[in-house]
């Protein structure tokens, strides 16, 4: 198993025409903390119904995601070279049908959270009360109205196994006004916290907390520009 310090090296293997460098690194620490300390997942239980589900909704700039999946043994490191090329399973947006451990195919924004709502419902309906559903979104991704449908509904029905991590690099053109993203969720009944997005201890603590309803963790990172 690789360490956090080795992730940049894995990312540099992924040469190619990746255009979303800043948004890729914005998620690096969140992804590492999730896979290193929070998620109950491993390469030998890919189909275990009781595993946690991590949904990378913001599919853009997935280099950090692939690096973490390689570091944790979900995919061979040899896959990293050739990222985005014709023979590669690793595209500029990840596909669950091509990459072990990837729970959704993403790319078009605003799909992960609504799918996560259904997944959280489905786990409960199957009596699987332990696994949790984590959805990573970007702050600008929340522009998409489909998220609003999910936020209001999930808050109203109180899904306790749903966690949204919003990586906030202030890239939404119009922002979220006073109170930020968290106000937008908490008014719908979510618990909400904001932590420094590079602080592993703070991320781990916030992401490991359980609650009676859906939870939002906003991870602040430096702006894109």
């Amino acid at each position: 198993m690789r360490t956090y310090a080795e992730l940049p090296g894995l990312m540099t293997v992924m040469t190619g025409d990746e255009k979303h460098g800043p948004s890729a690194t914005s998620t690096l620490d969140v992804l590492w903390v999730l896979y290193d300390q929070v998620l109950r997942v491993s390469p030998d239980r890919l189909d275990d119904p009781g595993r946690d589900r991590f949904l990378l909704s913001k599919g853009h700039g997935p280099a950090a995601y692939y690096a973490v999946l390689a570091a944790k043994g979900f995919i061979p490191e040899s896959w990293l070279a050739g990222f985005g090329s014709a023979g590669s399973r690793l595209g500029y947006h990840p596909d669950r049908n091509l990459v072990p451990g990837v729970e959704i195919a993403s790319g078009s924004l605003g799909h992960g959270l609504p799918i996560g709502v259904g997944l959280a419902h489905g786990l409960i309906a199957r009596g699987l009360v332990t696994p949790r559903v984590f959805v990573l979104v970007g702050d600008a991704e929340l522009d998409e109205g489909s998220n609003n449908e999910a936020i209001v509904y999930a808050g109203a029905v109180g899904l306790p196994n749903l966690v949204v991590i919003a990586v906030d690099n202030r890239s939404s053109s119009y922002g979220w006004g006073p109170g930020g993203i968290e106000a937008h969720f908490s008014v719908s009944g979510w618990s909400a916290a904001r932590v420094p997005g590079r602080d592993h201890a703070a991320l781990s603590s916030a992401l490991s907390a359980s609650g009676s309803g859906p939870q939002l963790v906003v991870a602040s990172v430096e702006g894109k520009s």
Partner: protein
Amino acid sequence: MSDMRTVFAETASALLDEDPLAAVVLAEISADLFAKAAARHPERVLNVGIREQLMVSVGGGLALAGLRPIVHTYAPFLVERAFEQVKLDLAHQGARAVLVSIGASYDAASSGRTHQAPEDVALMDTVPGFSVVVPGHPDEVPELLRSAVGALDSRSTYVRLSSEANRSALPVRPGLQVVRSGREAVVVAVGPMLSPVLDAVGDLDVTVAYTTSVRPFDGEGLRALASSPESAVVLVEPYLAGTSAFAVSSALARRAHRLLSLGVGRSELRRYGTPSYHAALHGLDATGIRRSVLSFLDMERAS
């Protein structure tokens, strides 16, 4: 007699009782019909409010959790409003669901364009992995729905319900079934178009074949039937005209043939009224179908 929508709700409710993995996702529409089922199975009957994008995405999420979701609302809101969710959150994920619509092309003639979706089958036809079934009678709905849910291990299905129905039900078969035989042409009647087709061609020397299964299209069955001198085929579909034309063309690609595609026209009528009035405006009543068939077969003299 119950209408298709009522029979659908009864059948889906029974499936919820029988199958612990069956689930129903709604966006207010028909929620009243599922009230009893929701009381029995609150974790598997989900009404997400007036949120059609979420409704389809939740269906995808349920499927990823291992459930067998039935997702239901009015046709334009199910297929058109949430189309990217159908494309990505179901098909692209490899998550399967049964989508059940009501409203069809102009069941809601008096409600206007917003509630009409004659394009639905053409759109669903672009989504890989979807079967499309169009019942012609309420009594055909239970078996078609049960088959669709039973096939979820391999395929998703779009089930298109309508308030329009044939006078009587036929046995549910996977492909074309011959209702009457003739020599001049094969007339394929889809779903509720069978009764008007039979009324239109009653005295003509044509085969009438009925189908509730539109995708996959029964090309082999059509090849076996289209044996008239010119392999003349008339396709009568209760949605956008020509929706299945490519399937007929593909089935008959290796032989010279002629095809007339009847269905709902592309122009917006901006008329209210009744479904039968709209059928007449689109040439889909018996009179209009007869006029088109006679012209196509150069049989005006027979009229």
